């Protein structure tokens, strides 16, 4: 059975568009792999320190067959989701509080911005003393890493709500809660989502730092896995784990970027190409 001509050309056009979007990143990855293979072939470092892309791919498959590495992935992802989720709640509450209260703002506003520039790994020695080698120590730092970005995103979003929209909403009868619920929060959404994206990046970095420093006995995680591979000088699975970490970070960032683009496009804020 043959499809109608119009349907077929539409399908071809879609395929063409998909190809136009996929070939540049594919080319980038190909160039990277080529350079890697080349470095391997000229033996820039001994092969057991610097494995070939093929070996890393094999390790990746082996890891995928090993239930222990899946449970490691599960532990890490759970920490990421819980940590980011708590940071989301705390950061949002803090952002609303700081944008509502001038006193609070001048009291801890600049401290919050300062925390954003502080490398969260610097918190770990203190966190370990405070909580020991526990989940809490890791979550503590993950939350500290992400909260300032999320709170600051919301605060600057609320600061930048056009006063004209607030005045208009006032003439329509919006006051207090309804002003926040129907005008201020939606107007601040694009900046808030940008803050969430940055918050996720910080949370993910802090989590990896935490898993390398806070090794909890009998609880495999991506960080613990990497520590073991380093100790046994097993570079191929080490690199395979790093690829997994990179991909997870990119996937979550991609989802948040899609949300952000959709929010912006709907209000006519998409990028303009001239």
């Amino acid at each position, binding site marked *: 059975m043959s499809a109608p001509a119009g349907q077929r050309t539409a399908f071809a056009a879609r395929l063409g568009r998909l190809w136009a979007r996929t070939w540049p990143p594919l080319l980038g990855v190909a160039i990277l792999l080529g350079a890697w293979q080349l470095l391997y072939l000229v033996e820039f470092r001994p092969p057991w320190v610097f494995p070939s892309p093929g070996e890393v791919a094999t390790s990746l498959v082996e890891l995928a067959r090993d239930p222990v590495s899946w449970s490691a992935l599960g532990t890490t992802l759970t920490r990421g989701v819980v940590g980011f989720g708590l940071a989301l709640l705390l950061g949002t509450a803090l952002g609303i509080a700081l944008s509502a209260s001038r006193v609070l703002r001048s009291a801890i506003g600049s401290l919050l911005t300062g925390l954003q520039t502080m490398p969260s790994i610097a918190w770990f020695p203190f966190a370990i003393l405070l909580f020991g080698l526990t989940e809490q120590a890791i979550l503590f730092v993950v939350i500290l890493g992400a909260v300032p970005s999320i709170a600051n995103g919301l605060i600057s979003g609320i600061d930048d709500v056009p006063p*004209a929209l607030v005045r*208009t909403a006032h*003439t329509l*009868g919006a006051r207090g809660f309804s002003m926040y619920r129907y005008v201020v929060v*939606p107007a601040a959404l694009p900046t808030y989502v940008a803050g969430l994206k940055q918050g996720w990046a910080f949370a993910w970095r802090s989590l990896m730092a935490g898993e390398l420093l806070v090794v909890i006995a009998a609880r495999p995680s991506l960080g613990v896995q990497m520590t073991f591979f380093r100790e046994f000088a097993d570079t191929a699975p080490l690199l395979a784990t790093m690829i997994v970490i990179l991909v997870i970070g990119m996937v979550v960032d991609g989802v948040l970027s899609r949300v952000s683009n959709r929010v912006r496009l709907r209000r*006519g804020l998409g990028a303009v190409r001239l």
Partner: protein
Amino acid sequence: MSAGTEMAIRARGVTKLFGRGTDQVVALDGVDLEVAEGEFVCLLGRSGCGKSTLLSMIAGLTRPSEGEIDMGGRRVGMMFQDSNLFPWLTVEGNIHLALRLSGAPKDQWADRTAELLDMVHLPGMQLRRPHELSGGMRQRVALARSLAQDCQILLMDEPFAALDAITRDALHDQIERVWAERRLTIVFVTHNVREAARLGDRVVVMQPSPGRIAEEVRVTLARPRKMDDPLIATRAAALHDKLDKYHVIAEQGRTS
């Protein structure tokens, strides 16, 4: 004004000061204004004569420093030079929000929205987004949104100043029709003398530094009016002379 006409707006001795100490500016100085129910009043003046300030005080966006404004509990709607549609909502969403905030029951929203969009000649535009509309269309949606709250008084702060002449003419016709159909009381701020003569039952000419009412002019032309009516041009020319006169007086007052 015939006896017994109810007043929609009574402003008495309204003064507005901005700033403090030596930087203090008197934006409005003891303004008295009465607007009858169903009247179309234009506040005409150059920039800096306090006409927008007076309007935002009537709207309750700022408080007078002295004096009082009484609207007898009437609902007030307002339109600005920019439509200020909420960009995250569709046309329908914008109107629904106004209905929600004015407490209209939810099951009426769809019908009322369709009715309002018909009234501003934008039927079927419910699902469009503000950034997809032209400036004139956005201003009409803003009008529909203001009317959604069932206001009896509509305040308009140079709502058509940013539009081209053809669109503006069309909107003048529309606002005149809506005003008559809904028996609205309208206070319309403008610096355009033709617009004031085209729309107003009464034109309140204001003068700057400090902002005061200089003179009131009644426009007794039959409605509906047309912008290209030569009588409007004559009224506009007369208003223009008055504006010039009061501006010069204000300048002299400042330099002496």
